[in-house]
């Protein structure tokens, strides 16, 4: 039978990396609470799921490794092995190895070098403890009929769609056989239709088998962990047959030695044989991201379509409203909001990566740091979460490497030896903020200033406030690390961090107080798909200005606009001198208002500067679904993208940061005359 495994494989890899993530999270928690049995269970379940799925999908390297890992975890779970700092360290290493093995299987990257080494350490840890156990595991396994052995009648009737889930009943039956001795096996062919009606991809057979095993009902249930809900699995205790019958059984499957060892050990712990609750429904559905985006796009079109209907209605019915259209429009807008929320994912996974890095760095640098996380359930657009990871990790490295002092230095400075690094995420006013706070030594403002002077970024005589000096760290070409360490200072500076964040339409600020600590705050938009826009008119054209950048807009009185040298025009806004940018000149649009006192000035703010855009008029405010121009065309300087207005025409969205680089526009005849 041939099933295209490609699509299943992809979801296997995705699920496996999720399991790894939860393993890692639980391991990190386990460090502080080594006695928490539930955490061990979580780790075990994750390892078990990976093992089961990887064998099914033929990713044997992963399967074998997880098997070793699982054996060890099982014993820890049963309390036979103590959770120690070394074992946690080793388990974390195993997570890394598994990650490497998975990416090797998926992308063909080389397998991690330390697979054998880590596997050997795991086995050693497991083996060492075995010898200390009084129970004679080997003997038990050989006898096969020790006191713990039970006999079960297992009815297994796969659902018709069984194969569609990428499952193979044979594998499961084999796995059962590995758990013990199959005494009796019957095939139920009653559901088998006549040959002509057989669907090759449907499953019709059922099996009833009698199994003698030391495994608990739970262990047997675990074999069927992955089957779908329509599959019938019934496990009932049966009477133990006589010895003779057992020996008469012709096909005793050779059981894997390690496996039987495991079983013996777990049976000796006598897990209570209660019927486990039916595996809860997973309340999530995996959807291809592209399909999701297509749908969100389509719904965006629907919103535009509705507003077109609205306008048409108004023009036909002389400005009256239609209750039906209003209702429809509300439903569609709600639908759009919901569709956008589908892309939202919590930042927890990113935070967890940070926790791991803090932990590893502490070991490496000999620092003591308590890492606190809050608001990890805060949700952000998937694209934003994917792209914010690297900048955040860069900053957390900075905090640990340069921010937090060594325990000795901290004590000498009168602080507790253990440093604090805090990461929190929260909502505020339509934005998401991620705040990174440490109580380290803060920035050496004097050093930053000196460096900036040395590099010619600021003048030696310039008077800078502390905040202005802090902002300098985002300047390209200013690495403040006195020495380049393995951890940070390798060229990727804060300027890259800022650029990445700005690409996500966010911003970043840094506040540092010497001796007290540093706080970095990252502001991110909830979503990248929609933007609140101010619609402005320029001649016959309509442009969208991102509302986030807009500070205010006003019409200057005649004479308020002053001309400086180089034809630079400025206007005073409450004492602040703001340069004017003639948008029509930069964008080269004809028939525009050239007299500022007849047009409007829109004051916009980039992270470090304000300027005024001269436009003809304001038309309104609208949520714009962003369409990028690159998908069919290419990037256009000064333009961030396009959107489709209510009347169906395309309006371009201006890129505030990009506009600045377009200035000064090449001088054009006839405009410079005042």
């Amino acid at each position: 039978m041939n099933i295209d495994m490609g699509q299943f494989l992809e979801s296997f890899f995705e699920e496996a990396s999720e399991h790894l993530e939860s393993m890692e999270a639980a391991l990190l928690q386990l460090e502080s609470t080594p006695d928490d049995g539930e955490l061990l269970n979580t780790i075990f379940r994750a390892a078990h799921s990976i093992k089961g799925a990887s064998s099914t999908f033929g990713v044997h390297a992963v399967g074998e490794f997880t098997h070793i890992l699982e054996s060890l975890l099982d014993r820890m779970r049963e309390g036979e092995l103590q959770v120690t700092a070394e074992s946690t360290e080793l388990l974390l290493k195993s997570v890394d190895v598994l990650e490497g093995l998975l990416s090797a299987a998926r992308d063909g990257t080389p397998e991690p070098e330390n697979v054998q080494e880590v596997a050997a350490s795991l086995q050693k840890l497991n083996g060492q403890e075995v010898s200390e156990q009084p129970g004679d595991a080997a003997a038990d396994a050989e006898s096969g009929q020790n006191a713990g052995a039970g006999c079960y009648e297992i009815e297994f009737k796969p659902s018709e769609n069984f194969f569609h889930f990428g499952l193979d009943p044979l594998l499961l039956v084999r796995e059962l056989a590995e758990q013990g001795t199959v005494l009796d096996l019957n095939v139920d062919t009653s559901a088998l239709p006549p040959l002509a009606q057989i669907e090759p991809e449907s499953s019709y057979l059922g099996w009833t088998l009698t199994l003698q095993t030391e495994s608990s009902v739970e262990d047997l249930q675990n074999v069927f962990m992955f089957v779908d809900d329509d599959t019938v699995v019934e496990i009932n205790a049966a009477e133990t047959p006589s010895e003779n019958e057992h020996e008469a059984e012709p096909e005793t499957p050779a059981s894997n030695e390690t496996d039987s060892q495991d079983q013996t050990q777990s049976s000796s712990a006598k897990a209570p044989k209660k019927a486990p609750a039916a595996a809860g429904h997973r309340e999530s559905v995996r959807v291809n991201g592209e399909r999701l985006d297509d749908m969100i796009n389509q719904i965006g079109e629907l919103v535009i379509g509705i507003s077109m209907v609205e306008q048409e209605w108004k023009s036909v019915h002389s400005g009256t409203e239609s209750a039906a259209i209003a209702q429809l429009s509300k439903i569609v807008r709600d639908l759009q909001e919901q569709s956008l929320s589908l892309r939202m994912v919590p930042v927890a996974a990113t935070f967890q990566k940070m926790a791991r890095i803090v932990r590893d760095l502490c070991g490496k640098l000999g620092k003591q740091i308590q890492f606190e996380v809050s608001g990890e359930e805060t949700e952000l657009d998937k694209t934003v979460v994917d792209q914010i990871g690297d900048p955040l990790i860069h900053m957390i490295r900075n905090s640990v490497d340069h921010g937090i002092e060594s325990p000795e230095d901290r004590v000498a400075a009168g602080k507790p030896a253990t440093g604090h690094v805090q990461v929190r995420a929260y909502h505020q006013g339509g934005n998401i903020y991620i705040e990174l706070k440490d109580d380290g030594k803060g920035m050496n403002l004097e050093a930053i200033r000196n460096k900036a002077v040395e590099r010619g970024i600021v003048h030696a005589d310039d008077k800078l406030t502390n905040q202005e000096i802090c902002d300098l760290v985002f300047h390209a070409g200013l690495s403040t690390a006195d020495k380049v360490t393995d951890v940070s200072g390798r060229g990727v500076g804060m300027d890259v961090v800022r650029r990445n964040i700005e690409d996500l339409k966010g911003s970043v600020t840094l506040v540092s107080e010497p001796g007290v600590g540093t706080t970095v705050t990252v502001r991110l938009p909830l979503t990248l798909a929609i933007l609140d826009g101010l619609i402005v008119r320029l001649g016959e054209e309509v442009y969208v200005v991102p509302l986030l950048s807009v500070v205010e807009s006003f019409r200057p009185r005649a004479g308020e606009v002053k001309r400086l040298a180089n034809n630079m025009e400025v206007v005073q806004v409450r004492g602040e001198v703001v340069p004017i940018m003639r948008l029509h000149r930069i964008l080269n649009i004809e028939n525009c208002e050239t007299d500022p006192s007849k047009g409007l000035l829109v004051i916009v703010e980039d992270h470090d500067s304000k300027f005024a855009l001269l436009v003809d008029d304001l038309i309104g405010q609208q949520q714009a679904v962003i369409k990028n121009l690159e998908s069919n065309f290419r990037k256009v300087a000064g333009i961030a993208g396009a959107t489709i207005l209510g009347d169906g025409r395309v309006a371009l969205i201006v890129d505030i940061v990009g506009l600045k680089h377009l200035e000064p526009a090449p001088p054009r005849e006839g405009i410079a005359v005042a």
Partner: protein
Amino acid sequence: MPGADTFTPETEHSADGSQFLTFELWEEEFGIEILRVQEIKGISRITPIPNMPSYIQGVMNLRGTVVPIVDLRAKFGMPEIEYNQFTVIIVVTIGDKVMGLVVDAVSDVLNVSDENIEGAPELGSDADTSFMRGIAKSGDRLITLLNMDRLVDIDQTLQAAS
């Protein structure tokens, strides 16, 4: 299948030739591969893009997709005309991109066998013929066949230069 034989000659015929959509520009006939053509649209509202060469007319809303529009007359340095009722936009796909081409009028769909296509003539250094795929002869008509990929290439060169 009994019907298969009757279809064979037809299939063979189009296998060694290609179908072209022909259109008019400045009283000359041009052709593009029909497989590249997604649809033909009347002129609708085009939003200009700032600081673009004159042949980039702007962008258009094609059922929710923002599609760039190239005026082929401007592209080939032909005199401008007012758009009229015959002016159409041929929407073509080039790789994974969609683009609209403004032409004077569409003519018809033409089957041209390979032997009736001649290579693009070399006209000295000042005539760029790289966007020509060849010249098709059909009766006494001569049709310039365009190489869509080269048309895009030119844009990319321009992008690199800017």
